[in-house]
């Protein structure tokens, strides 16, 4: 990301202005900040759901702005796995089918899963095992699972087919402290195993110690700057 500027509405104060960030393969980033500071916006920009008003966002050397909307959709599922705070799984589908979802839409993810596990199903099962999901749960519809189990299944899905980027938006916020730690360890271990970069957003700074990199997003009133007659409140970010 270089010199990215993004505002939710034209003429309003931008969330990001002149923002740059480089994430390399295998790096685990902890991104934190207060609510509404723009953490989720950053993830949406990184995933190409949102496009910057100015600046360049490249994912694996691909400029996301030059792709069409459906091209970005395709590119996103080919190269990124997502874990959200909750509601990751389709309730009526089995855990295994939920895990296999990206392989249904992305040929690349499917092929990489095959390459890793012989066929996508075995690779999904391997990941579920690695994430501590008992075999008895695989055929259960997702709605029967506890939240911790659901998050682990979501992690298995995000990792399936070795996408280069894992985006986790507060995946542990619905879990209690013990389970947070266990989940985080499993996730980091599997990301390390697949060599994926991890963008992990949380407002809980206690988790930050386990990450290789930290990014803090916060509003620091550095005074408003007049530009073209419009007031821009500036966001600054600090990288530790």
């Amino acid at each position, binding site marked *: 990301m270089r010199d990215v500027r993004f505002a939710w509405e034209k003429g309003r104060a931008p969330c990001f202005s002149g923002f740059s960030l480089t994430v390399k393969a295998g790096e685990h980033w902890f991104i934190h900040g207060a609510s509404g500071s723009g953490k989720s916006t950053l993830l949406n920009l990184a995933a190409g759901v949102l496009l910057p008003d100015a600046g360049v966002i490249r994912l694996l050397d691909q400029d996301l702005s030059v792709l069409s*909307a459906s091209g970005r959709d395709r590119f996103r599922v080919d190269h990124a796995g997502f874990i*959200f705070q909750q509601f990751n799984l389709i309730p009526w589908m089995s855990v295994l089918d939920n895990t296999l979802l990206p392989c249904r*839409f992305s040929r690349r993810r499917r092929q990489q899963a095959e390459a890793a596990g*012989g*066929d996508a*199903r075995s690779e999904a099962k391997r990941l579920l095992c690695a994430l501590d999901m008992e075999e008895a749960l695989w055929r259960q519809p997702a709605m029967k699972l506890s939240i911790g189990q659901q998050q682990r299944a979501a992690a298995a899905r995000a990792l399936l087919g070795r996408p280069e980027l894992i985006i986790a938006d507060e995946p542990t916020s619905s879990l209690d402290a013990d389970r947070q730690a266990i989940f985080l360890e499993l996730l980091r271990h599997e990301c390390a195993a697949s060599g994926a970069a991890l963008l992990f957003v949380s407002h809980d700074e206690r988790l930050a110690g386990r990450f290789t990199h930290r990014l803090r997003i916060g509003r620091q009133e550095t005074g408003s700057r007049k530009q073209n007659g419009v007031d821009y409140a500036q966001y600054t970010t600090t990288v530790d």
Partner: protein
Amino acid sequence: MPNTPQQSIDSGSQSAASSARAVFCPLSSVLCLHAIGSAWNRRGTLVFTVLAIALAVTLILGIERLRADARASFLHSVTGVDLVVGARTGPVQLMLYSVFRMGGATHDIGYESVQWVMRDPAVAWAVPLALGDSLRGFPVIGTTPDYFRYFRFGTGGELTFAEGRAFGGDVETLYEAVPGAEVAARLGLKIGDAIVLAHGSGENVTSEHADKPFRIAGVLAATGTPVDRSVHVSLAAIEAIHLDWQGGAPTPGFSIPADMARKFDLTPRTVTAILVGLKSRTAVFQAQRRINAYRDEPLMAVLPGVALDELWQIVGLAARALSVVSFLAAATGLAGLTAVILASLNERRRELAILRANGARPRDIFLLLAIEGILLTTLGLAVGLALLACLSALAAPWLMRAYGIAIQPLALSASGLWSLFSIWMTGLAASLIPGWRAYRLSLADGLQPRL
């Protein structure tokens, strides 16, 4: 999305290949499978939507078929009759009183004209009808035993007797009557029962022929034609009961007892209409012209098919109104379908967002919803057809018995197919609405709905 050749190379064992196929299918079938799975998950609600469509389809096709079959039955009220001859009046009016026994004739025709028609070289048979009397509201027809031989209905069915036989043609059997199936059923008439005819028809009954009671000789089987509502007696009997009548009323102070009447010349003086069968149908227009040009009495010959068609234009209006109602029912069903899918969209926003986060494009979401609607419409059509097949199989014997309507089992007419197709197309169009809504929603929501 085409499958890659890699797929076949990779699959080592049979089980691996089959499980592989479950995972790798083209996008459209992924969406279809997902739509089915998702719909199955909401089957509790959707079953009623499908049912509404199914009922509408049953209604439309049922009414359509009933209309076609009723029309066919109506047009076949008289078959094998090439001409209907009566006094000069409108063709529809002549059909109304001669075939449907509704209303009265303004004029009678002389029996000499009947004999003249019978002598015509082109005429194979002629059955005179004399109307004007009734039995508790049911019309009484004076005719000859030939009536039972030549009358045809439907696709050529002959009159058959549920019990007994036709009235005889001689003096001994003068006071015999043969009621149609409906008359017998309504009035509970059996062979041997005595009945008293009334003078006049419908509301205009003036007095009864109480001095000359009739005996039931036989009861006709149901035909689904106005024959079922008629009571048949001989022309001679009609003449006999009116021997001591003058100007539509019993002659005061003068009566001829029933047995005494047998001794009179009972050749009828007038009849109301004649049903005529020709030796060759090709002669029908010449015969018609000949009869219309008869010099001794103004006569009119009518082709029953043409007149019935004209009459159906009026009667068929009700059936057409029913079709309109059934199409409204279909519209209601499809509107319900759209409403149900639309209403479910909000609770499905998460599901759609999950699909988006896992690679489904907004247009896939659009397709998913459209496929769901089309699947439900198609299912509704199929269930409706099955329902119709069951219903018509169940109702066919009853419809034949009660109305003489012969139902064609599952024979879809061109208009029926057209109705099916238009319902399906409307369902397709209706499915695009939730599809479009979902498309807009998934564009707005991105990967995480803001609920």
